[in-house]
């Protein structure tokens, strides 16, 4: 991993079009500003990981049997 030392207000460029700027620095956290093209999604790592995990689980779904479908239908419409 590349490691840089930056001061408040300084930034890094990744390629031509992604800028990561140090907005403020506290005792145990930093605030970062990101300038990136809209086609590049930017997410907090731990949240993104949770979504990846859940998508993988969803893709391994059991095929709903007729019994499951009728049970789900009954429960979802009985509220």
């Amino acid at each position, binding site marked *: 991993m590349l490691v840089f030392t930056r001061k408040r207000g300084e930034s890094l460029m990744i390629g031509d079009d992604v800028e990561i700027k140090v907005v403020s620095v506290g005792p145990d956290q930093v605030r970062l500003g990101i300038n990136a093209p*809209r*086609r590049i999604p930017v997410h907090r790592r731990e949240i993104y990981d949770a979504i*990846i995990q859940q998508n993988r689980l969803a893709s391994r*779904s059991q095929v709903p049997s007729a019994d499951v479908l009728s049970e789900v239908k009954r*429960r*979802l419409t009985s509220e």
Partner: protein
Amino acid sequence: MSESLTSPRFGEIHYSREDVLSFPAGLPGFVDLKQFLLIDSPDLQPFKFLQSVEEGRIFFPLLDPKHLDPNFRYRLNRAEKELLQLEDSDRRLVFCFVTLAARPEESTANLFAPVVINASKMVGTQIILFESDYQVDRPLMSAGEGSK
């Protein structure tokens, strides 16, 4: 023009190019999959399915989030609207991914990261509702208990 793919779940699927939904950003965990079909069969209600065109064995069960939370709300940011090429007159669909276990009691729905589709332009993306309290794994069978 007619095309077809073979899915272990749905068998041979015939479709035309106009039926293909484009997901330019892929899906988290599946960023290489950019083309999907929306499978909507009367036999499978209330579920719909997002079937990958590129990987026949990959599909995701979908559910209208209103089934789980009648007050479900989402907002698109500017980047998401641009990606979806969204205009006011476009028809928009929203679904949550469902993880279907053998027993409905163990099945969950992801309200935190719904899929939004611009049906007028056939473009979709999965958004993340950072500001919400929605869960990624809300039990399917607790419908009506509110969103928190």
